[in-house]
């Protein structure tokens, strides 16, 4: 079975089909499929009205779940979204950015999902829709672990909501072993507000260093009031992270590179007008 609904009402009906899998950009769906044809019912959400595109809401921004990275990069958004856009530009390749979607990246729940750290700094919420209606949930609560989310049977991640953010600067740093098509060894997203040359508000999130990307609240509070960041990031700030040893790098390496990555990202923001 292959559902390709055009209305959300129909989509949530289709989503109740037993064993159904939701397909959007296919960039995670097909690789996990191996070389075989899918043997489960498929719900293709790419033609659902309102699932794609970035829109202004009364109190922020709505990113449709089926918005692909390229559309996000092209969207007219304030500088607070620069980090998210920078992350989008580092997703795989142009081919992947033209297909892969924001909701797909979140539902796939990889520890190295590129969009998660910047979305965490934006205090993003996910909109989950089912036949019983919509519910909103902070992204940090939605992601439960490696390949685990709070998505219930029959639910579709229909949008990501970002509340209004005051003027601020954001940045994203991804560390990999090659230039393109690379899975992060570690990544960092920051969103800061500056007053009179000093940081007055900071949000910092780290990905690929724990089962789910994390904000670093202790560091965020220590950053406030600072005008320079060199040497500010201490091991204590990173103590909530639990990186692993894998083929991409050792756990200790991941911890070691975070401080300079964070400092680089923040310095980049501080240097902006």
């Amino acid at each position, binding site marked *: 079975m292959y559902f390709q609904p055009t209305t959300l009402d129909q989509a949530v009906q289709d989503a109740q089909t037993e064993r159904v899998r939701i397909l959007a950009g296919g960039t995670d769906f097909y690789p996990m499929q191996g070389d075989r044809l899918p*043997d489960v019912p498929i719900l293709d959400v790419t033609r659902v009205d309102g699932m794609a595109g970035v829109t202004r809401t009364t109190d922020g921004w709505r990113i449709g779940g089926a918005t692909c990275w390229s559309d996000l990069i092209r969207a007219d958004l304030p500088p607070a979204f620069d980090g998210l856009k920078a992350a989008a530009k580092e997703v795989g390749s142009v081919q992947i950015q033209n297909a892969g979607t924001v909701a797909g990246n979140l539902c796939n729940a990889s520890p190295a999902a590129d969009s998660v750290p910047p979305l965490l700094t934006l205090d993003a919420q996910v909109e989950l829709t089912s036949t019983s209606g919509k519910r909103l949930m902070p992204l940090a609560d939605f992601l439960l672990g490696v390949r685990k989310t709070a998505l219930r049977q029959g639910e579709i991640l229909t949008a990501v909501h970002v509340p209004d953010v005051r003027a601020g600067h954001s940045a994203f740093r991804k560390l990999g072993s090659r*230039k393109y098509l690379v899975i992060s060894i570690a990544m960092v997203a920051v969103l800061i507000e500056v007053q009179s040359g000093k940081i007055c508000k900071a949000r910092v999130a780290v990905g690929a260093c724990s089962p789910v990307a994390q904000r670093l609240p202790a560091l965020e509070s220590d950053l406030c009031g600072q005008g320079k960041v060199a040497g500010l990031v201490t091991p204590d700030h990173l103590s909530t992270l639990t990186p692993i040893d894998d083929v991409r790098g050792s756990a200790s390496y991941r911890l070691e590179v975070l401080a300079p990555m964070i400092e680089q990202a923040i310095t980049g923001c501080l240097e902006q007008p």
Partner: protein
Amino acid sequence: MKDAATPEGIAFTLNNQPVQSTLEPGERLSATLRESLGARDVKIGCNAGDCGACTVLVDGAPVCACLMSTAQAAGRHVETLGGLVKGDENTKALAAAFQNHGAAQCGICTPGMMVAATAYLRNKNSTVEDALGGVLCRCTGYRKILDAVAEAARGGAAPLPVSGKTGQSIRRLDGLAKVEGRESFGDDVATPDTPVIRVIRSPFARARFEFGDLEGFKTHTEGVLTVLSAADITGRNCFGVIPPFADQPVFAVAETRFRGEAVAAVVGTPELMARFDPEDFPVTWQELPAVMDCATAMANDAPQLHSGRSGNVMTGGFVQCGDADAALAQAAHSVSGAFSTGFVEHAYIEPEAGFATVKDGRVEIYGCTQAPVMDLDSLEEILGVGRSRIRIKPTAVGGGFGSKLDISMQPYLALAALKTNGPVRLAYSRAESMQSTTKRHPADIELTIGADENGRLQGFRFDGLFNTGAYASWGPTVANRVPVHASGPYRIADFRAEAKGIHTHCPPSGAFRGFGVPQAAIAQEVLFDELAAKLDMDPLAFRELNALENGTPTVCGQVFEQGVGIKACFKALREPWAKATADAAAFNAKGGPIRRGVGIAAGWYGCGNTSLPNPSTIKSGVRRDGKILLHQGAMDIGQGANTVISQIFAQALGVDVKHLHLIGADTDLTPDAGKTSASRQTFVSGNAARLSGLALRAEILRRCNVDSASAVIEPSDGALIVRDGSARHEVSLSGLQSDAEGYVLRAEETYDPPTKPLDKDGQGVPYAQFGYAAHLAVVDVDTRFGTVHPVRFVAAHDVGHAVNPMLVEGQVHGGIAQGLGMALMEEYIPGRTENLHDYLIPTIGDIPPIETLIIEEPDAHGPYGAKGLGEHVLIPTAPALINAINRATGVQLRQVPVTPSRLKAALKEARHD
């Protein structure tokens, strides 16, 4: 649009034509395009978005067709290379530019690359690198592709000539089909209704297994046509590229020796096989303890992989001259190191694929291969039928680099075709390709090198263990080659080198560009830098002082009186070295976390088999209508043999290369030109082509009583015109009797390089010629992250005579890209990196500019002085990079790949962070 259920048929526009297709639910666009709509110009390299070969435009945006559900294409416009190259001016410009620069080598990535480049040229709203970063190329090193796209962006340039003498760059003779997407690779032959083979493979490195009810499985699974296992092998269930070491079963019996080893195969309808899950096959596994590295495999209680190979030692190689230990004991200075390298995967973008059918009682196998006649030899044994009943018809090869020398899919195709008495097809998945085909040997090397007070080498002792995996493959060749080459191109009077191949429960290690020499060169060239530092000598001056020259013996006691070109390579690097070193010092003087370093390293490589016969035969003929045909059986796997062999032949015959008609490799039609390996095709098959051309020329000139070296031959209708200065002679062909093949004149010639056996100390004449190389690498190391950013390369290569300089540069670039991958990122781990996103090869953003310095120190044995090149190109790269990192940071590295994590750890140890 439907709200539910399966779209039974969808309509979209394909290359400006309306098309309709019925779909399986969730069918990939790549499958629809290739199998339902005939768009075989869309190539599948990974089915996971990792390689980009299947890139198509959907409403103008590049996407991977393998990641797109065809249903999503409904109502949209899909464009592929085959359509774009006919109608899009950007693509047409790219087609010309790609040919001008040799930007398509094997051609398998070319459709994806050109489609992505077309999208770039349409709006130029990103960098070229960003636009092409999603397409992997394993042959070119990307720089020629960047050059070609830049040329197309400028509006084109004067075309490279299509014909010319040796020494001139001409377009590839087979290039047009590649840039138009018409080249037919291994999976492009079968029609869509052809039954499909799927191989059942071991999920464990070592396992005992038992089949369940195979007969019941076959009878009760709709769509299964037959099942194959060891019981179906009509000949010998054993193969191997080196007959005395043949040890690999087509299907394992009772126990498997590596993860991915075949135990059975299912042949079924395309409909069934598109859904078939190997988990449904009736086999039970019992995992057994496995040995995965040399040390474990050599332990006393280790399981033994093969009887008669005690201690899991497959074989060894040994070379000794003088007294290494005594010389080292008295050396003024010495350095030692223990080095290790990992498995390297060939990662050609075309997984193994082919088609077979039975025709007039003969089995015909179409597929990608580097060695059609060796395939024939193996199948003769496996099938147990006369070789006249087997035909190997190679397709285009989407990259080989050594691994397609061994048979892979061929026996399954042949057995299935014969058992079902009909056509069958088989394309390996990326995971299957990575699990089951050969790899570069991991090496553990211990090396000590000494020097006297003046910097002259004094004593060299090398001990290497090479993890040869579960089966022999080309392991014996590696064991033999390494000791012969371990000295590098240097004069060492007191030398001892031993290499052993050790069996483990890993995939078979086999041939990979350099046969173990790149691993040995890392140890030797890195220690050379450390020795030069101890001597307080400039690394280049130290190498020049010790370099081989005409008249000095190699470590095998071989003395070349001519053609030793390593000093010329070093000399060519003097100026770039001085300049780059000064630039780096100025850069580093500014301080900061990024440190720049310059490294050099050298290499040499003997062309052809080591002390073994290695003939090539090339046939040519003239038909009564004046047509000149060249039976060119030397496999072109992207390196350019079709063009180079033709240029050499045309030069010898005295015709313009444009008059030649090529008959490509086919065991029914072309005599054995040997395998495409060991950098032997330009040298060995080139010589056979030269001899064939000369013989045909002599026959033609005799018929018009011309005896002139400068006479030029031209075909004409029913005649050959011979022009000698102002004189014009006509050799009429119409009265001549044609032979069974339709030739009125013909010449078939063989060349076998003169070598002599090695004695117990490895003394003798292993090769008729060596080629020489030296690379300079500039890198920036970010000490905060342990990342290495190559800045540029200068590569000096002695090729004797550059038959086609454009193709020479293509080889150099591609070799450097592979050497860079080996040095910085590539490490195959069975069970863990069996795809192209965990196993990383360089992308277009990872290869810096490369300057190629072509050195021509002619070789007396080479055709017009030419030497082999294919493997030389990556031997110096990895050590040059490591030496550059060392000079940037002062850290001693002993393991590749130098991943950021490893380099950071080394920096930390050196208290450099």
